């Protein structure tokens, strides 16, 4: 188990580090919202899920995409704007998708996928599929009306949906306390009737344990929606490859405790060194290959501009007036 966790954590970290490294070359003309520091949440949750389970996310979902099994080549190529990207260069870093892996899409408008996940879960329940639907979102998203509205419906219909709030304490540069009159998200979820808990300290294994039993209960049909507030921390700037302590809205000393508690390092320590080395070598090769794949891939042809607007091409406009009935 630790091997798997470590591989997933390390892989996410390395992909994002590579993104950050390459970013200054301007080859990735894409806004990138890095998860560095927050990988533990996605890994803890996705390791409790099966391939057929489904996740929705946000613009900050590189970690979820990879943890859930999304194709690494498709993701990196997408950031390069290449035809081989997971959306063929149409969605970019904020709209990752890999339906085969159960990544049902991410959104750049805060909060939107919360409701989409609930609808997806409704469909799964109606179709008697034992699929668990998960949605990842930030602390800021809980301020949007769609959050309580979605919780209410999930409770009303007792849906197997997992709400994962990645509380990194900030929305862009504004702290939770400056945005929430009563900054206790878990309490609000409970008041909506959702069984909820809060996991402090970005603790990957603790969160995993709790999520696992929640997911099992959902599969067994003995649990409705569940909410987890996952305290975590973003190491880099809100969007882009750099650190941002210079901006002054937060301090390096605040970050210190989170960095010391880095889950990539923590879980690494639980893996025997030889295994760890092998994992790392494997991941490095995979990451390298993904970036090479992306670089080598072609840009989409301009003929792609107008495809996919509709799922089936819009019926051609008839060229003669429609006959009037006799």
């Amino acid at each position: 188990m630790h091997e798997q966790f470590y591989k997933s954590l390390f892989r996410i970290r390395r992909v994002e580090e590579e993104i950050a490294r390459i970013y200054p070359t301007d080859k990735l003309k894409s806004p990138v919202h890095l998860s560095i520091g927050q990988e533990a949440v996605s890994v803890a949750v996705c390791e409790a899920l099966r391939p057929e389970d489904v996740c929705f996310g946000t613009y900050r979902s590189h970690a979820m995409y990879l943890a859930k099994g999304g194709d690494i080549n498709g993701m990196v190529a997408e950031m390069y704007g290449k035809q081989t990207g997971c959306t063929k260069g149409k969605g970019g870093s904020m709209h990752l998708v890999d339906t085969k892996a159960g990544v049902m899409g991410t959104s750049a408008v805060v909060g939107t996928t919360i409701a989409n996940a609930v609808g997806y879960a409704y469909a799964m329940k109606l179709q008697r599929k034992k699929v668990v639907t998960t949605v990842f979102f930030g602390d800021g998203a809980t301020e949007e009306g769609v959050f309580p509205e979605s919780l209410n419906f999930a409770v009303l219909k007792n849906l197997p949906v997992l709400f994962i709030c990645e509380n990194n304490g900030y929305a862009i540069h504004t702290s939770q306390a400056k945005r929430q009159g009563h900054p206790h998200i878990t309490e609000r979820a409970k008041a909506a009737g959702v069984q909820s808990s809060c996991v402090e300290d970005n603790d990957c294994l603790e969160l995993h344990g709790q999520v696992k039993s929640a997911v099992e209960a959902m599969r067994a049909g003995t649990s409705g929606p569940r909410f987890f507030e996952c305290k975590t921390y973003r190491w880099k700037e809100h969007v882009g490859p750099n650190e941002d302590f210079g901006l002054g809205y937060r301090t390096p000393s605040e970050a210190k405790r989170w960095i010391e508690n880095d889950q990539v390092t923590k879980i690494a320590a639980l893996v025997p060194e030889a295994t760890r080395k092998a994992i790392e070598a494997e991941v490095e090769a995979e990451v390298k290959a993904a970036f090479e794949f992306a670089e080598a891939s072609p840009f989409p042809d301009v003929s792609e501009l107008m495809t996919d607007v509709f799922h089936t091409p819009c019926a051609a406009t008839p060229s003669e007036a429609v006959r009037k009935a006799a």
Partner: protein
Amino acid sequence: MDTTLCVEQSQTAEAADIVAMPKERTLTYTEAIREATDMEMARDPNVIVFGLDVDDPKAIQGTTKGLLDKYGSERVFGTPLSEDAMTGVAIGAALAGLRPIHVHIRMDFLMLSMNQLVNVGAKSSYMFGGAVHVPLVVRSMIGKSWGQGAQHSQGLYSYFMHVPGMKVVCPTTPYDAKGCLIEAVRDDNPVMFVEHRILHFQKGPVPAASYTVAPGKARITAEGDDITLVGISYMQLECLRAQRYLADVGINAEVIDPIWLAPLDIDTIAASVRKTGKLCVVDNGWTTCGASAEIVAQVLERLQGTRDIRVMRMGFANTACPTSPTLEAEFYPDARRVASAAYDMVHGRKKNWMPEERVDLRQIEFKGPF
């Protein structure tokens, strides 16, 4: 409304059987919608119907009546008052392969759903590179009269024409209500299905079999050479009435019902204007950046350099809808004012002619409370 108007044959392969059907069966618009929903639900277990009050005793003017009993509360359910999230739920369910029909008793309330409709529903197919699609139908109703007022009367469909990725349909007859709804449910994309509370009372021939009315095809509902009247949603009725008033004074108006606003059958409209040289678009909404602006612009784009044309737009007065009957009457175009404007266009100048009201062409009176 003249029930002999508007029945078109064999628009689709499926509709072939209809030709053989007796034409006498008459339904109201609401019954036609109910029947279309029922047939699609029976055909496809993925079709579900939800929205505020779809399962209550009034069943959305009867359009969802009996569906709860027949299909159960998992497929037919009322919702909390949460338009934003419920639209997101509808999209999520559609992503999972269901074909939701999400019902709103007023189009005005869709303003709470705009984020999900514009930013998610309309865009998902494209922004995910075709990996997903959203087979969603949104039914919404336009209110009119009896003091509905500013917030219960808007026809805001141009918002959904504006954004790529959605289809928009405004059927005006029971026949089209049924055929377009079946088509909309089967479409793999978000379709905004626009009803009008006054159209709900219309009766007309509706084949019992299943049939579809294909997107992007307008219907010529009256032929004529003197002027083209395009009537959208409820205003189609007023245009047909105006056509009668005009016929009384020897003017032959061609009346067109676009049915689908997106995709829009500009071919049919432009062909008519090529013939008549005069276009009056009567819309059931505001004209600024509305469907009427689009139709006028497209017709000009088509016909420029080929012939001189005259155009006119009529629609809601450029204000919120007032409640007092005297102001309400002034707010909306009606048959006589359409006829009067068309008369001026045909004569090329202001003639101050207004037909005497004909009893048989009077508007249906809607009696409240709602």
